[in-house]
Each structure stands twice: as C-alpha cells, then as structure tokens.
C-alpha cells in the first residue's frame, strides 16, 4: 500500500511561487519543548523549520522528511524604554507591528510583506527599503535562541562568531531558531512623509538614487521592465521617513499611532491563469507610471501603503495560475551599472511579463556568511514559468556571476550548486560548520539538496 501509516500525515509543501511541491510530514509545535522533541525524533530525511512560507523557492520544504511549521511559537515582550523586543520565532512582522506601533516602535527592517516570521527574517537575513542606512535584520539582532541538531539549546550572539554568522542568512540549516532579541526604531506616528519622483529611464533612476538616497531613511524604485528604447528602465522612486506629529492632518493627529491595515481583496483559488500576461502587464505598467507624479514632496502616506502595498491583495501569487512563477532577485556591486543596463535590456527584449519589478540601492553587508545584501544595486523581478524562461535565467545567472554579483537564496528556485560557490565566497566555511555541528545532516531542505549546502 502506498498510503502507509506515517506517509498518511504527509502534505505537499511548496514556496510562494508554487513551483516544485514536494511531500513532507508537517508538524506544528506549540512550544519550544515540542519543537525540540520533533527535532530530536527526525527521520532519515531530516527536518527544516518553516515560517509563513514566503520564500519563493524551496528553502522551507523538505521532500520525504519533516517540516516544522513554527508559526505556533508566538509571544513577545518589549522594553518600553529602549525598544528592545524579545519575540518567539513564529511571530509575524504583522503581529509585531500591530503590537509595537501603537506604543511608538517600528521593526528595524520591514520587508515588502508583513507576512514573514521572526525566524524567517533571521534565516534569510532580510533587508528592506532602509538597507542603505540601517543594514539587514541581523544588524539589529542582539541574540537568538537556537536548538542545535544535537538537541542543545543555545543562546547565540555575536560573541559566538562562527555560529552567529552562519545562522543569520543560513536558511535554517544550523538549527531551529525559537526566539530572538532585537532593537526597534522609535516612531512618533504611523505615517510616512514621502517624496515621489519619476525617472525617465534606468540611468536617471540610478543617478537619482545615488545622489539622493542618503537623505532618506527609506528608498525604493518601482521599475517598468517592459519599457523599451529611450524609456528602458523607467521608474518611480518613492523615498521617505517616519512622519512627525506636526506633519499630520488634524484628523490623523487624533490617532497618530493608529495601525490597522486590512486585506482589501483576495484572489480566489479558481482565478484563471493568464491574467498576468505581457499585454495586461504592459497596460498596468503604463498606467502605474503615468499615475505617479513627476515629482511630489512631503506627501503623508499610511505605513501599510508605503511598505506593504501587496499585502492588501491576499493570495496574489494565485494570479500566476497553477504553473506558478519564480522570483529572480540579484545584486550587482557598484561599478557594474553597465551589466545592470544589459540585464534590463535583456529582460525587456524577452518580453517576459514581470508584475513585480523593484530596484534598490543596498548598503554595507552584515557578517552573515550566506547573507545576501552587499553594497550595490539589487533588482527583483517576477518571472512566470514558461518555456523560454530557462534561457533567460541562464543568461541572467551568467551576467550576474561575471559581474561579481549574487542571487538571493530566499527567492531562488533555479540556481545550480556550482553557481552558489561563486556567489557566496563563505559557502565553504558554511559547509564546514554544518559538518561540525550537524554531521548527520538532521537539518535539511530541498534548497540545501539542490545547492549542496
């Protein structure tokens, strides 16, 4: 019988891109003790921790093994004077913000969605619109609690050197993160003061960001990857800071720290495929570019609209249909702007309809061995899975490698193991540490298998 007793508990697990689902036993512990027990009773194919499943590829799935859904590990406390938060690994950024904002604190790094967990934020060493000023999530991290493959519970901080640097950005492969302590940003309102400017092409966008980013805490550019010719890479830059109470309208000032974003719409499971095709995306891009002001300063916007626009549309990944999609995010070091131009040309020429395309200038790297951000430009694009896409991703990989760049593992679903070695110079150290603390490879994921981590 194929449906054996233990296999009956299995479910198909995939990433946000809904590609390459594999079957695993999914367990959802409610306590640290339960988590440790699951880790301790791992079968021959190991375990991997999973948060809210926003990694696009196969980082949080484990074919034939166990996936520990850590979203049941909840709870947090905050020091109201210093803004230091200690939170369970399963707490989402959404839950954190709802608890923190009314008291005048903001998470040190906010990614483009609130639906990521603290554990995931550390495992991917996430970055946000403020990377150029504040760095990635690990910069604000003072310590984390890890259950090692041996079963030992360890409080890890920077003095642990190798283990800390292997764990931040380590895609969950050094142990199960159960708790973390980090510093928050003080805020006085839940609004943002935003400057918007349109760039007619890529060159202008890069120049504007290079010249002006440092005057803002937060900065990002939406880029039109279907534009061609002189408009290649035209963008809308939105940059801003947390607003002060004096800048609010009287109505907003009555509830300066109010924060209650709602999901406005949900894409149903039966959404027909092909809604996002070159025609519709081109039309959307045209509208979006034209609708943005050529230049506007000092606009007051709610937090959610500035940081998490896509969270208003639940299950938006369903728009890509059953075939799913992949997200390609890479960075190129400063000085490789020529390669960036070539890549944008190549993507535009391919006609691939990327619904989401974002460009950002990154700042200094954290010490994480497998951490993605480093000084340079990062471009993120969605790619529907179609036949000619393989050639495109191969070309992008080659261009990124040649320019000394790298691909973000939290988004990746197509890299080969040999490319990872060239993109992440510390991967040998990472593998060596894994062999030391996890000789039987109890921590394992499909990503680890694919990239030989």
């Amino acid at each position: 019988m194929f449906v054996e007793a233990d296999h009956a508990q299995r479910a198909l697990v995939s990433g946000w891109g809904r590609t390459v689902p594999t079957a695993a036993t999914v367990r959802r512990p409610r306590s640290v003790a339960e988590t440790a027990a699951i880790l301790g009773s791992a079968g021959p194919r190991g375990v991997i921790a999973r948060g809210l499943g926003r990694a696009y590829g196969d980082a949080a799935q484990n074919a034939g093994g166990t996936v520990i859904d850590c979203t049941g590990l909840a709870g947090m406390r905050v020091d109201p004077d210093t803004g230091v938060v200690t939170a369970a690994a399963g707490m989402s950024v959404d839950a954190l913000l709802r608890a923190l904002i009314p008291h005048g604190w903001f998470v040190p790094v906010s990614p483009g969605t609130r639906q990521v967990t603290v554990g995931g934020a550390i495992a991917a060493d996430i970055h946000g619109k403020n990377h150029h000023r504040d760095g990635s999530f690990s910069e604000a991290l003072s310590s984390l609690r890890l259950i090692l493959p041996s079963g030992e519970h360890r409080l890890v901080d920077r003095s642990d050197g190798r283990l800390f640097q292997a764990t931040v950005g380590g895609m969950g492969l050094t142990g199960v993160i159960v708790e973390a302590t980090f510093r928050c940003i003080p805020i006085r309102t839940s609004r943002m003061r935003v400057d918007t400017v349109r760039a007619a092409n890529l060159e202008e966008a890069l120049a504007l960001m290079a010249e002006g980013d440092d005057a803002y805490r937060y900065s990002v550019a939406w880029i039109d990857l279907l534009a061609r010719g002189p408009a290649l890479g035209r963008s809308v830059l939105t940059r801003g800071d947390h607003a002060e109470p004096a800048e609010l309208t009287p109505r907003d000032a009555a509830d300066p720290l109010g924060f209650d974003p709602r999901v406005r719409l949900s894409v149903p499971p039966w959404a027909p495929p092909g809604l996002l095709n070159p025609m519709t995306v081109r039309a959307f891009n045209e509208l979006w570019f034209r609708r943005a002001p050529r230049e506007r300063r000092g606009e007051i916007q709610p937090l959610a609209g500035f940081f998490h626009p896509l969270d208003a549309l639940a299950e938006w990944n369903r728009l890509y249909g059953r075939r799913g999609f992949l997200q390609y995010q890479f960075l190129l070091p400063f000085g490789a702007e020529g390669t960036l131009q070539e890549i944008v040309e190549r993507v535009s020429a391919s006609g691939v309809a990327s619904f989401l395309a974002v460009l950002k200038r990154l700042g200094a790297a954290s010490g994480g061995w497998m951490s993605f951000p480093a000084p340079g430009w990062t471009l993120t694009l969605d790619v529907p899975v179609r036949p000619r896409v393989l050639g495109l991703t191969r070309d992008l990989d080659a261009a990124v490698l040649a320019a000394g760049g790298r691909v973000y593992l939290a988004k990746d679903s197509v890299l080969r193991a040999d490319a990872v070695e060239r993109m992440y110079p510390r991967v040998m150290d990472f593998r060596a540490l894994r062999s030391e603390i996890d000789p039987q490879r109890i921590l394992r994921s499909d990503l680890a298998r694919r990239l030989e981590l």
Partner: protein
Amino acid sequence: MKNALGVVDSVVVLGGRSEIGRAIARRLVRDGASRVVLAVRGGAAADAAVELGELGATVTVVDFDALDVDSHERLVRSIFASLGDVDVVVSAVGELGDQARYEREPAAAAASVRTNLVGHVSTGLAVAACLRAQGHGTLVVLSSVAGIRTRRSNFVYGCAKAGLDGFALGLADALHGTGATVMAVRPGYVHTAMSAHVPPAPMSVTVEDVADAVADGLRRGAVVVWVPQRLAGVFAVLRLLPRSVWRRMPT
C-alpha cells in the same frame, strides 16, 4: 533536486539500450543533470556512458534483466540507495519486433509482451515506492500511440503499450498528492534503429523531439505527453472511427 524550470540533478534509465531513453538522458544532462544510472542487460552500455560522461555527467552502468521480475525490487532499491535522491526514472525497455513473426510464433509474441509490459509493472511499482519515500521525483513511462487504439498491423506491440499506458495512468493516480509523479509519453512514429524496418508514419519525430517533449513535460508537471503534441487531437478523432473504417486504415 528538480528546480522550478524542470532542470534535474539525477536520472535513471531502465533499459539503457533504448535510443529514446538515451536521448532523454542526453537532454537532461545538457540541461544540467550531473548523475546518470544506466540499467541495461549485461551492463552493456559503454558507448552511452562515454557520451554522457563527455557531456559532464557522472555515469554508472548496472546490470538489469527486464525479464527477471524477481530481481527488480532489489535492483531499484540499490539504485536509489546509491544516488541518494532520484529526480527522474525513465522506464525505457521495449522492442518493436515483427508482427508477422508473432502471428506465426505465439510464444515469441508472449515473450515480447513480457519485455514490453510485464517488466515495467514490477520495476514501476518498485520505483513508485522509492519515489514516494523520498517525497518527490518522476517516473517517465515510454508508452506509444500504438497503444491508444491497437491496429491490425502491430497489435502485439500495441497491446503491450496499451497495458503500459493504463498502468502508467493508474499509477499516476495512485501517487497523486505524494510528491511523486508519473509521465506517460505517447510518441507517434519515432525514427530509430528499432523502427527502421517499418515505413515512417505521418508526423514522425526524432528521438530528440521526444527528449525535448519530456524535458518540457518535466517543467510543466505534465502527466500525459504526446509527441508531437498535435497527435492528441488526431487520436481524439481516430478513436471515434467505426471499426469498419479503422480496420481499413493504411498501415
């Protein structure tokens, strides 16, 4: 592990003398597969091993007797144990044979059905169990349009393919939701040494065409792959022809 674009790491070909099986392995290795196991009678696949090795893969050749069903479970398990994770298994054993001879020699006909169907059932089930245990992977079964509606001109070959096609689809349903999948490949006439003695049918294809269709099917997660694709529409019609017409179709 397979990536989101259908590129795989490891390939097993059961029936390493099959030209189609080899073409599939070549295509997958060109796309990025690094490990191949060729299972063939007497372990005789040196030329294929060299060719795939030159394309960059590590190739292992193992002895495999399609008729010795008692040995299949052990062999499949040992292949999986040696590779660790297996992404694709191609069930490629097959012989076209000679219909006229089969009609004269019933025992030879029965032997061809053992080769073309029976061995696939035992290996297929053993592979399915291993794929299920690892929670991922695809069994590619080389079916044929000859099995969609058997014809007077080659019904001994055709009936085995009909059985094989039914087995593949039933197994696909059994594995639904387990992470493991089955792909039934239904080529029309394929130009090979095996089919050289039979005149080509319309819409004939090469082994590379079949390999391309399999690679594309792996990307899409397809269960049924016709080669060329338009044969699906053709056979939707052919299946409905009255017997009196079908019987008289040119061979």
